[in-house]
């Protein structure tokens, strides 16, 4: 037995929370071990202890039966433990090889020997099937390839244990398949992989064993062969959850929100939305699928006129609102739930009550004064109606959990009675219970006849909620499918920019082309 890693009785306490309570975890050489749990279950803390980022209050870490000390990430790397963070730790302006040797001493004395490093890197990438050009500038590479750089960085340091934190969150289905191929190769190579995730399907697909955490404790460790998705969900949440939204059949009404030939640029002047058309009807959820960064955020912001519009029109209930102010958009009937709930959707320093009237501050008034009593009344109603768990309406909104904050924002935007609702990544980072609640509210709003534009990177969410799914790629709609009959493969291909029926047949040729472009 070699390179077995054991974490014994790990305890870590943060102010107010016991993040890890006597956690035991064993990782064998040559296995893919999934670490499953809701947000706040203690997975990240455990992995950060393993990576030397946090110190533990008590407990022991052993490699091949010997106690090791992990005081910093440097110690971890020296022991062959490496981590790919959810947010990549790459210098965008540096080349692949420069990023790889960052922090190492490669070369002769003070001089950097990038050529030798490049050779080694090429050798590694061939061996592990990670196609890469060492000289490419990292910032220009697609996300999936950047992730490869992160993995190669670890292999360059000869990591035996690779920790990947939510690695598929930003990938297309195809990139995900490629990643899984790489992980399987690493396993054959005798290396271990810890996959931190909350996506059950992926665990069932690739992991050998899975450890489930809840409330800082390990609930169970299972062989994949001897468990199933339902059991894992129950272990993770502590109760039965039915993550199938029951969508009632319903005839959509008139077109409420229309976008015509919209063109929008981002801060750097790149055109992110390039001649986009769509139409959302009353009582309908139109889903926008796509890998992050294909213009979805810019589309949402342009609809609200939070972003300058280069050309095209936004039409609300038949009236052109393209260039009206944000305040007028709100008054005329578009609500917006932004992707970034802590920095855009709410003011975390202010109370729940003050956040409940964000965007409505001119509505709650008495003469020249604020209608503070009415505003507080409505905040209380919001908390009750949407089941927001808070220490009271005077509680700072920033102290709410992600799910409760999202319920507050979503509730506020729904309750203002707009005809159209633009919702961006409503469940990103939320745990299963909160996802259930948010989905329920969106469907309820649909039933009330609102026209909902739902932007999400989670296909599962779109398939469950949307009536139609439009796939966005590089600022355009690649195609619109009925959610009822949609296939994941078809949507996945469109997300990667491959369109048209019979795409499967053309798949092989395109695969080559795709690989060529990432080289």
């Amino acid at each position, binding site marked *: 037995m070699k390179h077995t890693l054991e974490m014994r009785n790990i305890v870590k*306490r943060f*102010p*107010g929370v016991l993040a890890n309570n006597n956690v035991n975890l064993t990782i064998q050489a040559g296995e893919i071990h999934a670490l499953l749990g809701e947000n706040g279950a203690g997975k990240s803390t455990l992995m950060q202890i393993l990576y030397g980022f946090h110190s533990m209050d008590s407990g022991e870490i052993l490699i091949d039966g010997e106690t090791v000390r992990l005081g910093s990430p440097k110690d971890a790397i020296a022991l062959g433990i490496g981590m790919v963070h959810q947010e990549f730790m790459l210098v965008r302006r540096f080349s692949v090889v420069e990023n790889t040797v960052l922090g190492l001493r490669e070369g002769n004395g003070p001089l950097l020997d990038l050529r030798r490093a490049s050779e080694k890197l090429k050798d590694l990438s061939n061996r592990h099937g990670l196609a890469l050009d060492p000289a490419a500038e990292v910032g220009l590479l697609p996300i999936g390839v950047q992730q490869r750089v992160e993995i190669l960085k670890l292999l360059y340091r000869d990591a035996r244990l690779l920790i990947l934190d939510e690695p598929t969150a930003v990938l297309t289905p195809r990139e995900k398949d490629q990643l899984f191929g790489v992980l399987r190769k690493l396993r054959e190579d005798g290396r271990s992989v810890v996959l931190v995730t909350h996506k059950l399907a992926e665990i069932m697909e690739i992991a050998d064993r899975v450890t489930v955490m809840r409330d800082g404790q390990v609930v169970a460790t299972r062989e994949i062969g001897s468990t199933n998705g339902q059991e894992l969900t129950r272990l993770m949440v502590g109760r039965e959850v039915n993550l199938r939204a029951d969508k009632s059949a319903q005839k959509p009404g008139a077109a409420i929100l229309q976008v015509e030939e919209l063109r929008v640029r981002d801060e750097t002047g790149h055109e992110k939305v390039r001649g986009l058309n769509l139409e959302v009807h009353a009582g309908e959820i139109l889903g926008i699928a796509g890998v992050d960064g294909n213009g979805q955020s810019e589309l949402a912001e342009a609809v609200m006129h939070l972003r300058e519009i280069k050309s095209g029109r936004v039409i609300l209930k038949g009236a052109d609102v393209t260039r009206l102010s944000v305040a007028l958009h709100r008054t005329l009937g578009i609500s*917006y739930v932004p992707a970034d709930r802590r920095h*855009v959707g709410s*003011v975390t320093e202010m109370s729940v009550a003050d956040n409940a009237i964000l965007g409505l501050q001119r509505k709650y008034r008495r003469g020249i004064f604020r209608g503070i009593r009415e505003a507080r009344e409505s905040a209380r109603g919001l908390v009750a109606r949407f089941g927001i768990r808070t220490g009271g309406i005077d509680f700072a909104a920033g102290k709410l959990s992600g799910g409760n904050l999202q319920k507050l924002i979503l509730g506020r935007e729904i309750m203002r009675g707009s005809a159209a609702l633009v919702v961006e990544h409503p469940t990103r980072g939320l745990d299963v219970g909160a996802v259930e609640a948010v989905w329920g509210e969106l469907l309820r709003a649909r039933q009330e006849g609102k026209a909902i534009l739902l932007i999400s990177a989670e296909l599962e969410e779109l398939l469950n909620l949307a009536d139609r799914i439009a796939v966005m790629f590089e600022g355009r709609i690649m195609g619109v499918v009925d959610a009822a009959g949609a296939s994941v493969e078809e949507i996945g291909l469109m997300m990667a920019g491959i369109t048209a029926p019979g795409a499967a047949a053309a798949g092989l040729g395109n695969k080559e082309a795709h690989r060529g472009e990432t080289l």
Partner: protein
Amino acid sequence: MAKLFERRLTPSDSPIAIFATTAAAFLTAMLVTAFLFLSYGASPFQAYFALFHEPFGTLRGFGYSLVRTSPLALIALGTIVSWRSGFSYLGFEGCFVIGASATAWLALLTAPGARIGPIPFFLFLPLAIFVGFVAAGLWAGLVGFVRARLGGNEVLISLMSNYVAIFILQYLVSGPMRAPGSLPETRILPRATWLPFILPGTRAHAGILIAIAAAALVWMLLEKMPLGYELIVTGFNAAAARYAGIDVGRRIMLAAFFAGGLGGLAGMVEELGSQHRLMDGINGGVGFVGIVVALLARLNPVAVIPTALLYGGMSVGADAMQRRASIPSSITFILQSLAVLLVLAFDALRYYKINFSVFSRGAPPTATEEASK
């Protein structure tokens, strides 16, 4: 392992906790300064008695304290409006000077035989408030415009604009507004334009009433009016403000205008209440001390008047202390600066508590150790 400082689970932000930490900081500053007194061979008790008795224990001294309080409080209020709106304005020296110049110009116009001629005080005062406020408000609003529309850095621009304003003042008093005579200063303002004295036998003038009214209005604006809500949202988070349909650029320009206007009122009050003539150097750093007062008051308009009174009083007491106990008045400056630093530092006590048990042997285990057993 027991730690000396243990993080509180939630910061204690009750008014009592805030008052207690502020008071503790102040007392600590006084304790440290007491050693400085000792090095001059003076008794700290006598020195402190002199420092506080003169401004707060004598009528005359209290009058002087009030005179110093009014401009400090008005500038502190301006600081609160701008900083809470996310506009880090530092140009209050300039606003003070512009406000003082504008009101002096108006007052001299009402001198007998001047262009306007004498007008009754109840007409003059609102006019003076308007002129002082608007002149300095536009002065600061210009910086707001540069920040909001052109993306300029208000810290640098407002600091530099102080010099420009002071040069304008120097030009006015040595050029167009200069009184015949040797000194670069204006004529004395007509008696009818002076703010009335409010405490018989003292120099205290009605400026303090203007400052109190301004504090009430600023409180009302920030706490009770939709506009104040929008300013505060803008200050906390401009992205959220834009999202909420608030015109961030306009709000910033408005905050700059209000802040400048309050700074201008400080100049007006000083001019019509105490100086009674315009000359170079009337600002004397009050535009910066006012910012310090706002910080000490934790950007809370309700706390501004008492804080400014304490600060203004101490500078009056410093002079008395120098006379009586022959201790340099600059020690007071040390005391004031220490107080500011310590008030900010003592804030940590609201987030951490001190574990005195680490000093005693056989300290009981902390919660962490308890849990790990």
